[in-house]
């Protein structure tokens, strides 16, 4: 069946290092992807998005890479800071007869000071 999953459920990174969070998806009929950040006790916050006609998109300290060949999405955070500690999850918009959004279960990022 369709699924969006994260390879690593937890990730610990030293402050100042770069972080890479991965997401695998199984449905090739996808149009749009979003990375969300969810801090403890808060709702998910939009970080960055990418459409299926792109391979890479950069924001402030974050980069999203899309590899459609292997159906893989990654979020790279440069110079990770303690404030980056949160759960990160990807969302996939599958466009077929209608639009369906599939959310991954999330990866917990812990930044070690």
């Amino acid at each position: 069946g369709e699924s969006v999953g994260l390879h690593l459920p937890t990730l610990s990174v030293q402050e100042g290092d770069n972080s890479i969070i991965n997401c695998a998806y199984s449905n090739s009929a996808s149009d749009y992807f979003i990375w969300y950040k969810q801090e403890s006790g808060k709702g998910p916050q939009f970080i960055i998005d990418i459409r299926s006609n792109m391979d890479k998109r950069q924001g402030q300290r974050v980069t999203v890479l899309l590899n459609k060949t292997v159906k893989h999405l990654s979020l790279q955070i440069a110079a990770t800071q303690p404030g980056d500690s949160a759960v990160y999850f990807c969302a996939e918009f599958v466009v077929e007869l209608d639009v369906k959004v599939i959310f991954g279960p999330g990866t917990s990022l812990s930044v070690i000071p």
Partner: protein
Amino acid sequence: DVKVTQSSRYLVKRTGEKVFLECVQDMDHENMFWYRQDPGLGLRLIYFSYDVKMKEKGDIPEGYSVSREKKERFSLILESASTNQTSMYLCASSRLTASSTDTQYFGPGTRLTVL
């Protein structure tokens, strides 16, 4: 900035009670969504609405109903709460675009415990 608010951050209810969860957005978004979030399962769509008085079932609508009487407000109703409805409930809104793929903005969530 988009603002999505939910009426309660924490709720404790008893089995069989009727529960109302309210969501309000201030960006004139057409689409509104209700999700529940459980550990290891991610976000699962309960219901969504793309216009006033319109509603569509999501992946797990059983045991829930919704109401959209005004564009800015989307209510989730548990007619008779059960313990398996203990969860974090998240409301989201987005614009209605031609492709229907647009960013969903989330509220802070309501953590509901049913005893």
